[in-house]
Every structure is written in C-alpha cells, then in structure tokens.
C-alpha cells in the first residue's frame, strides 16, 4: 500500500483559510466598528486631547500665563471657567495644560520605554550574568515606591521639569524592564530563537528581528498603562507642588492652586482633576480592549 497520494497534506485537518485580500485600513475600520462603547469613548477622548494639545495656541482664548482678570473670578461669558488664584483664565490654562502635562508625561514614558525596553530585551536575549545583574538592580530599585523615591531624588537634585522627567523616566523604566524581560523570556525559549542562534546570527538580529516583533502587542498595551501611571505620578507631584512649576500651565498644579475653592462649594478644582482622570480612563479603556483583542488573554490583568 505504498502508493499513497504524494500531497497527503491536503488531507490535513481543516487547512487555515487564506489571508483575506483587504487593506490594513479596512481591517482597522472594521475592528473599530466592532469595538465596545468604552473603547470608542476612550479613542474619542484620546483624539480630542491630542488635537487640543497640538492646536492649543489657536484654540485658547488667552495667553498661557497671561493675567486677564481678578483672582478667582466666577464663570462668565468672558471667562468660561472663571480665573485662577492669579487671575489667569482657567479655560486657557486647561487647554495649555493638555500640551504640557500630557506632553511631559508622554516624553517621560518614552524615556522609560527606551531605557527599560532595551535593557529588558538585552537581559532576556543574553541571559546569564548580564540578566542576573540587571534583574537584581531592578529588584532593589523597585523595592522603593516610585512616588517616594522620586520625592527623595527631587529633593537632592532640585525641582525642575527636566529633573522630574529624568527621575521618573528612570524609576519607571524598572517596571518596563520587568515586563519586557518577562515577555521576551517567553519568546527566547522558543525553538526559532535557538535555531537563529545555531545559524550563527548576532545579538542585533536576534533581538530586533526575532524577538521584538513578537513582543510588540504586549509592549504596546504596557505603553498605554505606563503612560497612565507616569501621568498620574507627575500629576500627583505637581499637585503636591513638587512637579511642574509655575508659570507653566499644568493640571496637577491647577488643582493645587484652586483647591481652597472646594470649601466654598465651587467645582473649579475638579475641572483640571477631571481632565486628568478622563484621559487616563480613556487610555485604560482602549488598552483593555486591545488586550482582549490581541491576546485572547481576556482575564489577565
């Protein structure tokens, strides 16, 4: 019975379907249409924020640090959201805050990702002592809560935006290191990595061509979550008066500046706080949806 058909693989159970001839755009649009309400809401929020941040000078009615009225003016046609403790227009400050607060948090996250991502990837790919040393350093750094550590370092180096970006970027890179290393290690144990090593490929090819494409989805999700965390940390620092300094418009410090109004039954301090919350909620909704979609690991996190 040796006259078996040659292409016996056609008998292979349920061959997977051919890739549909669709452009990436149609796929994305279809996915978007199917997205849950929360994710659509999140995307809308993000798009709005980015738009406001980019076009702040054109949208805002006044200049960023311009004193245009009296202290704590009521909401009016002239000052839609009133004025702050120095008589600057709240709405204007909120609009510029989108640029400053979000921009600074984004930069910081980017820094954390470059640093933590590269180290994590290398630790996983090289393994051995490199991995041990990097991992132990990170363990120790992570034993101190970020906010507390940041406050110590800000005391030492002095409070400035650059210092803050560097400090939080470095501290947060430990978290990025952890996750990058963890997902990379899962890839590194795969046979195709061993196969690439045995082929004689160098570290560059292995990390960039073999590992990186496989860890992009979890890293993208992590970027969203990290951004939220960084954004909240920076806002908290600013709120405590240790972060972004005046006259730069920033939501955290705006809450601090107008906080006293709360006791007079005034909503004003809630507005910048709301601006912060809304963005993180939006990003989280989108990340949550993305995790559902990309991994099928619905119930992790």
């Amino acid at each position, binding site marked *: 019975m040796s006259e078996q058909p040659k292409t016996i693989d056609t008998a292979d159970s349920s061959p997977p379907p051919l890739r549909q001839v669709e452009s990436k755009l149609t796929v994305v649009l279809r996915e978007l249409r199917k997205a849950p309400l929360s994710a659509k809401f999140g995307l809308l929020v993000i798009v709005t924020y980015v738009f406001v941040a980019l076009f702040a000078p054109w949208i805002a009615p006044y200049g960023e640090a311009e004193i245009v009225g009296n202290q704590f003016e009521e909401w009016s046609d002239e000052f839609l959201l009133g004025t702050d403790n120095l008589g600057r227009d709240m709405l204007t400050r909120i609009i510029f805050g989108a640029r400053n607060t979000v921009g600074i948090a984004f930069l910081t996250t980017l820094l954390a990702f470059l640093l933590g991502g590269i180290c994590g990837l290398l630790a996983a790919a090289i393994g051995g002592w490199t991995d041990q040393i990097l991992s132990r350093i990170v363990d120790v*750094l992570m034993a101190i809560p970020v906010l507390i*550590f940041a406050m110590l370092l800000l005391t*030492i180096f002095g409070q400035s935006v650059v210092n803050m970006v560097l400090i939080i970027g470095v501290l947060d890179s430990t978290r990025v290191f952890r996750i990058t290393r963890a997902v990379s290690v899962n890839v590194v144990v795969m046979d195709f990595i061993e196969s690439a090593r045995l082929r004689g490929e160098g570290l560059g090819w292995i990390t960039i061509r073999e590992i990186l494409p496989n860890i992009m989805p979890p890293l993208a999700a992590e970027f969203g979550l990290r951004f939220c965390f960084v954004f909240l940390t920076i806002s908290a620092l600013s*709120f405590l008066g*240790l972060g972004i300094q005046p006259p730069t418009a920033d939501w955290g410090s705006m809450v601090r500046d107008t906080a006293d109004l709360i006791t*007079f039954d005034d909503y004003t301090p809630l507005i910048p706080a709301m601006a912060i919350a809304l963005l*993180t909620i939006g990003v989280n909704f989108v990340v949550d949806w993305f995790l559902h979609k990309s991994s099928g690991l619905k119930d992790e996190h």
Partner: protein
Amino acid sequence: MNDIVRMLIQRISLGLLTLFVVSLIIFFSVSLLPGDAAQAMLGQSATEDTVNALRKQMGLDQPLHTRYFSWLGGILQGDFGVSIGNKREISELIGGRFANTLFLALYAAFIAVPLALVLGILAALYRNTWYDRSVNVVTLSSISTPEFFVAYILMLFVSVKWGFFPSLANVTLDTPILERMYRTFLPALTLTLVVVAHMMRMTRAAIINLLASPYIEMAALKGMTRRRIITHHALPNAWAPIINVIVLNLAYLIVGVVVVEVVFVYPGLGQLLVDSVSRRDLPVVQACCLIFAATYILLNLIADILSILTNPRLLHPK
C-alpha cells in the same frame, strides 16, 4: 518541612538584604549631587559660615562610610538625626505622625479588603454577566483616577454640600478613637475607593485563573456541588493569590496615603515628607523615605512568606 524552612530563611534574608541596599541607596544618593549637599541646599547666596555650619551639622566633614554607619546605627536605636529646618529631633517629628499614617492605612484596609474580596470573587463567579461588565468599567475608571480627584469630589459632596463629615482631618495624639474615626472618615474612604478597584480586579483575575484549572473541571465531572467545588477545591488553592493581592494593595495604600494626607491636611508621615521635600530638609526626607520603603518591603516580604506557607506543593514536600 526542611524545604519550607529553607525557603523562608532565604526570603527573609533576601528581604533584609534588600532593606540594607535600599538604606545604602537612600543614604548615598545624596552624594550623587555634584558639589556639596550643604551648599546646594542653602543656595548660592548663603555665606561661607552658614554653609560650613550646615556641613558640620550634616557630618559632611567626615568620610562617607563613617557617616553611613553612624546614620544607620542611630536609626536602629530610633535616632534619625536632627531636622535642618527646625532643628528638632526627627524621631520626635516622626513618631506620632507615623502612627497616624498607619492608623489611616489600616482604617482604609479594614473597609477595603473585605469589600474588594467579596466583590472580586462575585465578579469572577458571575463572569461575563452585566454585573461583571459594569464592575469592569467602574473599576477601570476608578483605577485611572488620581487620588486627589476622588478626594475633592468626596470633600465637595459629603462634606461641603451635605455636611456629613469634616473636610479637614485634624487629629491630635489624644483624639479619642471614635472621634478620630469620624474625622478621618473621608480620607479613609478616598483610599478605600482608590484601592478597592485594584484589589477587586486582581482578585477576579486570580479566581478566574484558578477556576480554569483542570482539577476544577475534574471536580465538576466527579459530580461535586458548586459549593463544594468552591470551598473544597478552589479555596485551598486560592489563598496564595488572594493574600498576594491583599498585601500588594496594602503596600499601594502606603503610597497613596501621601497625596490623601495633603488633601485632608492630615498630620501623617506623608504630609511631613511633602513639606520636607519643599524645604529641602534632606535628613527628614531620608528618614521618611526609609520608613516608607521599609514598610513597603516588609509588606512584600509578608506576601512572599504567606504564599509559601499556603502553597500545598511546598507544604507537602516530596
């Protein structure tokens, strides 16, 4: 039991080592500063004499390692040194405030832990129902919210508008416990709201993960009742993840407390830390950081130890 004892000793010594290294970092990061800490703190306008005086006070004229060991030795005996700002003993500044902070964190934990566990387990058991989905959206939003936002909303409504609880949590050492609980209710509630969401989500994930185990399916195929599956098959294996969730969130509370204390002007360690950072009172900042970090490390260590002690595989070694 040998294995377990060995692992416990390993974890505890690792914890102590971490603590030691952290103390090194906290102490020596000061010397990362280019130039002189005293000069940097006082600014360029300070006279040579005042800078020298501060140098002496901070012990900067002595070699680094001597300074470290006398600092650490002092701390181990409860002596944190002297504040630069008001020249008072730091241990005096810290004592009552640390107790206040612990009180607030525990207060919040007592509300948050049972609430989060019950809600989280329910969400896991009634997965993909409308209850679960709305819980997901609500907790996700609540995780994303800065503490001060929650705090001010509570303050505005519960305190200013409805007048139920005081908006400022001023307590002193001799405030009686019930009065203290009343005055600190809003900060405790804020912390609870912030931490419950986290804890719930983690509990839910841990339970769902557990319920997907083949041995749970096996129990169902053996005809066990749902109740028995939960109490007899899931629960004995659930302790480790649940304890982990609780302790990690307590550690999170310790950090969240900083912002909440400032909002409600609560005389705790967080408030002291923030004030000292703005004044660049380094010895106080170092002391506060060490205490926060030590608490955090200790809690993580407890989580580790408890999860070893509740792991059936480790409890019954080969």
